[in-house]
């Protein structure tokens, strides 16, 4: 079946080349049937890549180890869910996933716009197929998922245990959906410039794709942070690692674009800015995809040795140069139709938001690529750490949250100063009250940034709450509905506005969680013996007794570890019981006979099982690094290695059982990492709010509403003019 896979890749590449030719020919000669054929090649591409993807998936699910990538990343004992997801844990598989997702989204978008924007679509089709062709070429010429070995090995290496967590398996498809969705607005942006048609129709179409990209990318980022916090043993959710930053940057420019697009829609301004933002977002998405697999930057994900670096650098160079060319050669048609009516207007606040977001993106870009920049400028490679990032992003984040509270209160086009002043009373009071309460209770002592963030968040809540309140009141006056119905109707008829308000609340909540959990965290790393306890923040944590298990029978996460050593921790506060935590370290088979018949059973990469008590006000987080190398335990391994033949792993497990008993009988002191972090849960809750709000904002208004609007507005428009 690998032949079918390989052949479908070559077919896919041919389809791309054909489609590009057909679309371009169709649009240049005005022969619509060729453009149509070009568009259909995108559908055909989606079909062919689905076949390729299915072939690979089936190979994984059927344990076909003749496929090299199956043998390298899966095994017969890997649980089915992780087998299915292991497809994208390798370079080749992830390229196929990327190309497949791109083809699916492109098909959807081109289908939805099939009756409109003929010229723009045709160019966009060619560009989307160009990207598809690029990724498929990478597979065909550099890293094919369909390489085979004959005869097939009997068993595979297995999935890296670090990846055996549901979030980690959903994180790549989500993130890739986000990245590939960013390519769609890029293609339509370039298409619009090529067709010389940057107008209302284009705005309407591109807004929805951009929102979808923003949503998926954001979910991917959140999932990554959650995985890092809940699974990795360092207890943090964001480390300003190069790859984390790479996914955040297009999200920031995407957010800026969603806002500034509204200005273009209303006032015909900022056309150059918007087109540049859309092109930048797509380019940053490609750069993000590239960073993970190129090894040019030192980071957790970047692997040594240039792999696919060169083709990507060429692609990025082409993107940047062509963007600059397109924008400058079309600048006549990108001239603004109007100017800002007044500084006191929502448009002006949106401009401010854009500047802050782009500023944030610039800071993160600079810090992330600094090793390359410093090498180029000074000849020495240097890097900046999290403190540098924090120093600049924190104030910018504060301004951003503040602006998101100011925006709702100011009218479009031209706000009345007196009214604006009046409207700020409640939000400002809420902010000031929060300030006073926090200062008086001494909660936020010596952490000015956290304090400022809490007050800004209160300000936002006041501002948005006021908007909702007033909106519901207006609706009730007009339609006489009871409050709950009025609320629903209000949101349904003004989805963009009120969905957007929900997003702002969500962002404020996320930042409150981030501020609290970074500024007021108590962490402790120390060695404890059974019976000993320690104080972390207001909590007392006692190491009650050790735990040891071999090939755990009840293993809800299906991790497949051979030996697991851990501890039972008793957590209490002011003498009252709070929770019991059971952190552990899972040991895995390394499959290397050189380590000995027993040694290899525990010689694989160990995985820390974090145990935490997540609460509304705080998380109590624990991780353990047990000492598996005590003299007595090492002795058991040595004896086992000498006496047990390597072909009898079942007997080797008996040695592990002896080790487990030994560990329980005479437990050595273990290293604990303990953290008490306030308000972490609100980061995840805030994220959910943001995405709920985004969905509402994105949801198409029922066409019935649009129809009612058009008739009455038309007659009233005429009436209004008769009066004026």
């Amino acid at each position: 079946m690998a032949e079918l896979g390989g052949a479908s890749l070559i077919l896919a590449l041919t389809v791309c080349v054909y489609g590009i030719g057909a679309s371009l020919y169709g649009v240049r000669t005005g022969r619509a049937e060729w453009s149509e054929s070009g568009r259909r090649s995108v559908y055909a591409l989606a079909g062919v890549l689905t076949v390729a993807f299915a072939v690979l998936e089936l190979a994984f699910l059927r344990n076909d180890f003749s496929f090299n990538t199956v043998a390298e990343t899966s095994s017969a004992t890997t649980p089915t869910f992780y087998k299915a997801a292991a497809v994208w844990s390798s370079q080749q598989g992830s390229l196929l996933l990327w190309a497949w997702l791109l083809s699916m989204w492109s098909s959807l978008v081109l289908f939805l716009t099939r009756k409109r924007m003929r010229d723009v679509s045709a160019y966009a089709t060619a560009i989307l197929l160009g990207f598809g062709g690029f990724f498929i070429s990478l597979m065909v010429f550099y890293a094919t998922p369909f390489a085979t070995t004959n005869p097939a090995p009997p068993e595979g290496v297995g999935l890296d245990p670090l990846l055996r967590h549901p979030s980690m398996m959903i994180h790549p498809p989500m993130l890739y959906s986000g990245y590939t969705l960013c390519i769609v607005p890029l293609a339509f942006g370039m298409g619009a410039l090529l067709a010389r048609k940057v107008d209302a129709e284009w705005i309407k179409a591109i807004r929805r794709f951009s929102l979808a990209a923003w949503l998926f990318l954001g979910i991917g980022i959140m999932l990554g942070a959650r995985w890092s916090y809940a699974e990795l043993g360092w207890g943090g959710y964001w480390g300003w690692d190069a790859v984390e930053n790479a996914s955040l940057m297009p999200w920031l420019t995407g957010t800026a674009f969603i806002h500034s697009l509204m200005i273009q829609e209303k006032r015909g301004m900022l056309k150059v800015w918007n087109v540049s933002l859309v092109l930048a977002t797509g380019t940053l998405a490609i750069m993000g995809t590239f960073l993970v697999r190129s090894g040019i930057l030192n980071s957790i994900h970047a692997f040594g040795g240039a792999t696919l670096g060169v083709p990507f650098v060429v692609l990025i160079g082409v993107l940047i140069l062509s963007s600059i060319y397109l924008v400058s050669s079309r600048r006549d048609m990108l001239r603004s139709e109007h100017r800002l009516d007044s500084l006191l207007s929502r448009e002006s606040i949106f401009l401010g938001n854009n500047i802050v977001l782009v500023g944030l993106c610039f800071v993160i870009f600079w810090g992330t690529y600094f090793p390359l920049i410093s090498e180029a400028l000074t000849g020495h490679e240097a890097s900046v750490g999290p403190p540098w990032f924090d120093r600049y992003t924190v104030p910018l984040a504060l301004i951003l949250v503040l602006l998101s509270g100011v925006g709702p209160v100011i009218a479009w086009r031209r706000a009345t100063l007196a009214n604006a002043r009046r409207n700020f009373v409640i939000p400002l009071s809420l902010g000031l009250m929060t300030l006073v309460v926090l200062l008086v209770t001494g909660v936020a002592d010596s952490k000015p940034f956290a304090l400022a963030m809490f007050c800004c968040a209160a300000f936002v809540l006041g501002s948005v709450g006021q908007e909702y309140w007033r909106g519901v009141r207006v609706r009730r006056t007009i339609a006489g509905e009871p409050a709950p119905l009025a609320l629903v109707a209000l949101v349904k008829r003004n989805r963009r506005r009120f969905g957007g308000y929900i997003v702002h609340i969500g962002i404020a909540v996320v930042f409150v969680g981030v501020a609290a959990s970074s500024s007021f965290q108590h962490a402790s790393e120390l060695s404890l013996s059974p019976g000993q306890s320690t104080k972390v923040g207001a909590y007392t944590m006692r190491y009650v007794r050790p735990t040891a298990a071999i090939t755990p029978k009840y293993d809800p996460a299906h991790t497949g570890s051979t030996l697991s050593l851990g501890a039972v921790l008793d957590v209490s506060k002011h003498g009252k019981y709070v929770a019991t935590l059971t952190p552990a370290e899972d040991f895995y088979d390394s499959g290397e006979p050189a380590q000995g018949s027993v040694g290899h059973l525990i010689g694989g990469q160990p995985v820390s099982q974090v145990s935490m008590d997540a609460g509304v006000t705080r998380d109590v987080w624990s991780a353990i690094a047990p000492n598996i190398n005590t003299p007595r335990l090492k002795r058991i391994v040595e004896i086992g290695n000498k006496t047990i033949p390597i072909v009898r792993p079942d007997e080797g497990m008996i040695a592990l059982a002896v080790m487990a008993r030994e560990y329980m009988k005479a437990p050595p002191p273990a290293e604990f990492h303990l953290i008490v972090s306030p308000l972490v849960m609100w980061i995840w809750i805030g994220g959910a709010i943001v995405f709920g709000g985004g969905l509402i904002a994105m949801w198409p208004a029922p066409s019935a509403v649009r129809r009612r609007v058009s008739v009455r507005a038309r007659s009233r428009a005429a009436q209004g003019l008769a009066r004026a």
Partner: protein
Amino acid sequence: MNGLAVLLTLVLLAAVMAVVSRPLLSARKPDESDTPEQAELEAAREAKYREIRDTELDYRTGKLSGEDYQSVNSALRTEAVEILDRLDSLGHEATDEQQEATGEQQEATGERSDV
């Protein structure tokens, strides 16, 4: 290459060619439901109506004084009528209006606003 794989590949190839060549072979021209200009004007009209509703909501929630509202509102309505006029001259809107007018008669009234 084993036989099954070859067969499936050929089937795939045939399917692709069928999908891709249909518009080239059929005599029918691809469906032209809207001229580009019409689509553009309709999009602009929708956007303008949304602006009018937004401004009304702004006024009713107390962000604009009566005066400011009147001036912004009439400016918007002028712009809207411009767009409608241009659509009219394309000759299409008359039919639309009739359909929508009948639709309105069937609605329960009581809504004096678009908020």
